[in-house]
């Protein structure tokens, strides 16, 4: 234990007074006194209180009784369960307030440490530069403290991971947390151990002992780690099969040998759904899993497919090479006008040079006979094509002829119709002329026979009527209505049909 009235003691006193004030049992007058108690350098007291913060009084804990010291909580680096509202964060350190103080002049709030350090350089509010007196113008806003107390924080000791309200954190951390590193139970040892191990009965944990299992030298604090990683002597019981296994080989045992653990059939990838203990699976595999055959077939099929693909690939290559060899660079397209040109390449292989090159490529051709055979086949195909083309053009020609003929037929039919119409007109004209002639005849003979005036024989009408009509032009003019009516009648009866 440090002697009384050490700087550390002073810090704790300051923090204690702050927390006593937090409880709200102190009036404003008392609050003011709080700062003035620490003589002239009140700011420096505040500062030192927060510079090496040990904000809570030493509790009668295992660690405190053992070694009188635990690492303090660094409130600025705490992790909060949920993001903290901006309004609860100090504008200077940008973390949730720790021991907040509010200015009575402008109402801005800061952590005690932050505002103290700021006021040290300039006695004004860091936000609006209003003058602030360290002794008079700072007070603790209860509502802010209450909100801060309710925030959920993570215990800062490594490995703990507990979330609790900020209010309860000091109690947990200072008294209960098993993971907090405290001084070694041996006062002469300067190292630290987790609180769970720091019992006076344990003595110093930082000395070497001989491992009872493997007889190697190990530090007591590292014994568990030694068992788990390197000790070949320390064994443990497997939870599945109750077998005794070296501790650090337990994983291997579970993965490879343990008869209690369940595993899948080897042919799971082929569809076997068997999932049982190791011996059962081994028996199942020994008897022959049905999916084994399927798997083999599958792999065979895959092999075959690969082979087929390979062969196809090679065949394509050969085809392409053959085409290159057979077709001359300026091979004429076999078309309607020049399909005869298709015969040209046949002659080429006959030439000694082509034959020689063909022989040189015996790997692809086998022999000249093969080559000729190929050529023959090609020729046959071309002849076939030419034949189809001839047939095609023949049929086209016929179609064209038929089309022409149809057109002529139509024209002839039309002309016939017109001739018929004309002849009918002529006939009607002839009838009219004859009637006129008859009327004239009756007028000429005083007592002529009127009965014969209506009808004349159509046969004799022809040339005679035309001459008479010219002679009687005046009469037509003298009697135009009768003429017009008749002619129109005649037209009405035989309209020209074109």
């Amino acid at each position, binding site marked *: 234990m440090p002697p009384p009235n050490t700087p550390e003691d002073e810090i704790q006193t300051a923090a204690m007074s702050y927390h006593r004030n937090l409880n709200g049992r102190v009036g404003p007058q008392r609050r003011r006194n709080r700062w003035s108690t620490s003589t002239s350098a009140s700011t420096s007291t505040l500062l030192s209180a927060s510079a090496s913060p040990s904000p809570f009084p030493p509790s009668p804990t295992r660690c405190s009784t053992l070694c009188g010291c635990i690492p303090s909580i660094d409130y*600025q680096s705490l992790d909060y369960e949920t993001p903290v509202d901006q309004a609860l964060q100090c504008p200077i350190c*940008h*973390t949730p307030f720790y021991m907040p103080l509010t200015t009575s002049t402008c109402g801005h709030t800061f952590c005690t440490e932050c505002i103290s*350090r700021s006021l*040290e*350089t*300039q006695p004004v509010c*860091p936000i609006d530069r209003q003058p602030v007196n360290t002794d008079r113008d700072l007070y603790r806003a209860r509502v802010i403290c209450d909100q801060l107390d309710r925030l959920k924080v993570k215990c800062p000791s490594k490995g703990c991971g507990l979330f609790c309200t900020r209010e309860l954190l000091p109690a947990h951390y200072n008294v209960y947390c098993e993971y907090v590193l405290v001084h070694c139970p041996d006062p002469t040892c300067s190292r630290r151990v987790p609180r769970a191990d720091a019992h006076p009965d344990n003595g110093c944990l930082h000395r070497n002992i001989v491992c009872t299992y493997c007889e190697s030298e190990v530090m007591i604090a590292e014994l568990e780690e030694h068992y788990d990683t390197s000790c070949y002597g320390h064994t443990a019981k497997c939870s599945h099969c109750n077998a005794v296994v070296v501790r650090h080989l337990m994983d291997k045992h579970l993965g490879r040998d343990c008869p209690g653990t369940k595993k899948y059939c080897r042919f799971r990838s082929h569809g076997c759904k068997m999932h049982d203990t190791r011996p059962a699976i081994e028996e199942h595999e020994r008897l022959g899993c049905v999916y084994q055959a399927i798997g083999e077939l599958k792999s065979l099929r895959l092999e075959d497919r690969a082979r087929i693909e390979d062969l196809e690939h090679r065949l394509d290559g050969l085809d392409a090479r053959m085409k290159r060899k057979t077709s001359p660079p300026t091979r004429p397209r076999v078309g309607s006008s020049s399909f005869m040109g298709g015969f040209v390449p046949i002659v080429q292989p006959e030439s000694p040079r082509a034959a020689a090159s063909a022989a040189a490529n015996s790997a692809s051709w086998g022999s000249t006979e093969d080559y000729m055979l190929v050529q023959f086949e090609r020729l046959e195909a071309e002849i076939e094509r030419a034949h189809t083309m001839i047939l095609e053009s023949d049929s086209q020609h016929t179609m064209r002829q038929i089309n022409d003929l149809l057109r002529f037929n139509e024209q002839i039919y039309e002309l016939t119709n017109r001739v018929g119409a004309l002849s009918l007109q002529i006939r009607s004209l002839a009838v009219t002329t004859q009637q006129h002639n008859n009327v004239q005849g009756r007028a000429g003979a005083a007592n002529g026979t009127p009965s014969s005036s209506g009808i004349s024989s159509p046969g004799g009408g022809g040339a005679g009527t035309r001459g008479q009509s010219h002679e009687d032009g005046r009469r037509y003019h003298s009697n135009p209505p009768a003429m017009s009516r008749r002619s129109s009648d005649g037209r009405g009866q035989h309209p020209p049909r074109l």
Partner: protein
Amino acid sequence: MALPKRIIKETERLMNEPVPGISAIPHEENLRYFDVEIHGPSQSPYQDGIFKLELFLPDDYPMTPPKIRFLTKIFHPNVDKLGRICLDVLKNNWSPALQIRTILLSIQALLGAPNPDDPLAPDVAKTWKEDEQAAIATATEWTKKYATPTNQTD
């Protein structure tokens, strides 16, 4: 020395919500040292210019102001030949409630509103007071010459 939470938070915010026209990127090997680029404000002779600055956060930041210096040559009455800036908030008027982003915004504002009555470069301030048109022309020319991305020199 571990980096204070405040600096980590400020850096994160500068990365995640950058201020328009301002970028500040910390050095990997020293997280207290920042490479800063400020775009010249529009309607000013520094328009279209990109000015490089260096920013360093001293050990007792935020109790002391960050140290900032122009790396790009600039014709401004409040910036001297070495790039040092005459700005009250960087000196006496610093407050720990100010941040990197607010300071950089103040510098950008200073570019938009030069103050020849409180000069750091007396010759520049003199030109600015006697013939403002000529001073603005020079500032524009320097911006074009030194702060244009294509041929920017330090």
